[in-house]
C-alpha cells in the first residue's frame, strides 16, 4: 500500500519534470522557431498590413534586393562597422588586459571600472555620447574654447564622421567586454610558462609574441565572434545616436529591416532582408569561429 503510493508520487514527479521541459521547448518553438518560419514564408510574399490580401510572389523580393541601393549601402556600413569595431575593441581589450593584469587594489578598482560601459543600457550610453558629440555638444564646446577648432565639427552630422563616431562609441562599449574576456584568458596562462620564459631570457615583445598571444587564442575566438555578432544585430545605440542619418549613411541592415517593416509597411520585403541578415550572421559566425578554432589548434 505504502509502496504503491510512493510509486504514484514518483511518477507524477517524473511527469512534472517532463512537463516543465516540454513547456520550455514549446515556448522556444512558439516564440523563436515559429517566428523564424513565418518570417521565411513572408519573405516570399508581398505582405503589407495596409492590404487586405497577400500573394506569394516567388523570389521577387530576393531579386529586388539585388538592385536595392539602400540595402547595399546598409550592408557596406554594417560590415565596415562590424569588422572595424571588432578589430579595435579586441586590440584595445588585449592592451587593457595586459595593462590591468596585476593583483593590487588599484588595479582591481580599474578592472571594475573597465567593465562599466557594458552594464549601462545602449540607450543611456548613446544619449551620454550624444551630449558629447552633437553639434553644440561638450566636445565641440571644449575644442572651440581652447582654439583647436574655429567652428563646431559635425561629429554626428556628416556621413564619414558619423560612421567614425558610431564606431568609437560601439568600440568603447565592446572593449569593456573584450577586456574581461582577455583578463580571464591571461589568468589561465600557467605561471610556470612565464617563469620558464624569463629563465630563458625571453621578455618584452618577444614574450608576448611567443607565449602570451598564442595562449590567448581561445579567448580571442570567443571575444571576436561575440563582438561580430553583437555589432551585426546592433540597434539601440545607432537608433539613438543618429537614427540612421545623415541621409541614411549610418543605416545598418538591422535598422533598415525595422524601417521597412514598421515605417514603410513592406513586411514581405523586410522579411527577405531579415533572411539575408540572418544568413550573413550565420556565415560570419561560422567562418570566423572555424578559422579561429583551427588557429587555436595550430598555435
Amino acid at each position, binding site marked *: 500500500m505504502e509502496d504503491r503510493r510512493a510509486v504514484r*508520487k*514518483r*511518477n507524477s*514527479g*517524473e511527469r*512534472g*519534470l517532463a512537463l*516543465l*521541459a516540454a513547456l520550455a*521547448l514549446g*515556448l*522556444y*518553438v*512558439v*516564440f*523563436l*522557431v515559429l*517566428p523564424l518560419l*513565418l*518570417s521565411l514564408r*513572408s519573405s516570399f510574399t508581398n505582405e503589407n498590413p495596409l492590404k487586405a490580401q497577400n500573394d506569394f510572389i516567388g523570389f521577387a523580393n530576393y531579386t529586388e534586393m539585388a538592385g536595392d541601393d539602400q540595402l547595399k549601402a546598409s550592408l557596406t556600413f554594417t560590415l565596415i562597422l562590424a569588422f572595424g569595431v571588432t578589430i579595435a575593441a579586441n586590440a584595445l581589450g588585449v592592451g587593457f588586459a595586459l*595593462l*590591468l593584469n596585476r593583483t593590487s587594489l*588599484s588595479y582591481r578598482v*580599474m578592472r571594475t571600472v573597465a*567593465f*562599466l560601459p557594458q*552594464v*549601462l*543600457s*545602449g*540607450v*543611456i550610453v548613446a*544619449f*551620454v555620447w550624444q551630449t558629447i558629440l552633437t553639434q553644440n555638444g*561638450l566636445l565641440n564646446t*571644449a575644442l572651440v574654447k581652447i582654439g583647436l577648432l574655429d567652428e563646431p565639427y559635425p561629429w554626428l552630422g556628416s556621413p564619414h564622421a558619423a560612421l567614425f563616431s558610431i564606431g568609437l562609441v560601439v568600440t*568603447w562599449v565592446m572593449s569593456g567586454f573584450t577586456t*574581461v574576456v582577455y583578463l*580571464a584568458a591571461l589568468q*589561465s596562462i600557467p605561471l610556470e610558462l612565464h617563469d620558464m620564459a624569463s629563465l*630563458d*631570457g*625571453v621578455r618584452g615583445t*618577444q614574450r608576448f609574441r*611567443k607565449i602570451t598571444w598564442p595562449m590567448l587564442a*581561445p*579567448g580571442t575566438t*570567443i571575444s571576436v565572434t561575440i563582438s561580430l555578432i553583437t555589432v551585426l*544585430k546592433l*540597434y539601440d545605440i545607432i537608433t*539613438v545616436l543618429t537614427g540612421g542619418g545623415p541621409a541614411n549613411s549610418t543605416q545598418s541592415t538591422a535598422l533598415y*529591416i*525595422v524601417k521597412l517593416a*514598421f515605417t514603410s509597411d513592406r513586411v514581405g520585403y523586410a522579411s527577405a532582408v*531579415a*533572411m539575408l541578415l*540572418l544568413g550573413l*550572421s550565420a556565415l560570419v559566425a561560422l567562418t570566423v569561429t572555424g578559422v579561429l578554432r583551427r588557429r587555436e589548434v595550430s*598555435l
Partner: protein
Amino acid sequence: MTTTSRDTRDRQAVGGRSALTPPPQPRPRQRITTRARVLVAAAVTLVFVAPIYLMLVNAFKPQDKILANPLALPWPPTLDNLTKALSRPDNLIPLGLRNSLIVAVISVALIVPLGSAFSFYISRRSGRVKAIILVALSAGLMIPPQVTLLPTIRILTWIGLDHSYPGLILANLGGGYLSFAVFVYVGFMRSVPDEIIQAARLDGASGLRIWWQIVMPLVRPATATVVIFLTLWIWNDFLNPLFILGPLQGQTITTGLYLTIGQYSVDYGQLFGIMFLAGVLPVIGYLTVQKQFVAGLTSGSAK
C-alpha cells in the same frame, strides 16, 4: 606554426644568460617602472571612463556650469537636476523603473526554472534527438532579434496579448534568453556526478524532486550567472519593448528615455539627471555582484 627548431634557435640567440643564473633581484629602477605603470594604467582608465564620469558629475551641476567646464567636480553639488527629473509630470523615471523591474523580475523568475528543468531533463538523455535540440537551441543565441520581431508580434496578436506586458514577458521566455539559460545550465549539469542522481532515484525520489532539491543547489553558480546576465539584458532591452509594447502601454526605462528625451536635448543638466537616475540601479547591482559577474563571464568564455 612555431616549430621546435625555430624555438631553439631563438633561445640560443637571446640566451646570453644561462638557465643557471639566478633571476635578477628587483632594482630601484623596477620600483619606478611599477609606479609609472600604475600611473599609465590609471590615466588610460580615466580616459576610458570619461563619459561615465561626465554623467556622474554633471548630474549634480546646473546647466551653465556644465557648459563652462564639463569635467569640473560638482561643487557645490545641486540636487535640482534629480528632483526635476523625478517630478516630471509624465513620471518617466518612477514609471519606467517600475515597468522595467516588473518585466525583468518576472521574466527571469520564469526562465530560470524553465531553462534549468529543461537542461536537467535533456542532459540525462542521449542520442541524436538531444544533440539536434541542443544545436537548435544554441542557434537562438545568434539570431538577430529583428528577424523574429514582426512574426512574434503577430503570434501575440493571435493569442490576444499584443501590446501588453504579459505578451512582452512571454516573448522574453521563448526567445534567445532561454537559449542562453540552457547553454549555461547544460554546461554545468554535465559536471553533476551521475551517482548522486542514481542514488537519489534508488531512494525513491522523483525527477522533479531530484532536480529541485539536489541538482539546483549543486548548480547555484550557473543560476547566479543566468540571473545576473538575463536581468541586465532584459532590463537594458530596447527593441522588444519598443515594438511589442508600443507607445500606448507605458514605457520601460529604455524606451521611455528614447521616446521622451528629444525635447530636453538642450538642457544638459536635465538630461544628465535623467541618465543618472536611469543608470544608477544597474551600476549598483553590478558593483554588488561583481565577483559572480566576472566569474560568469569567465566560465562562459572557457567553454
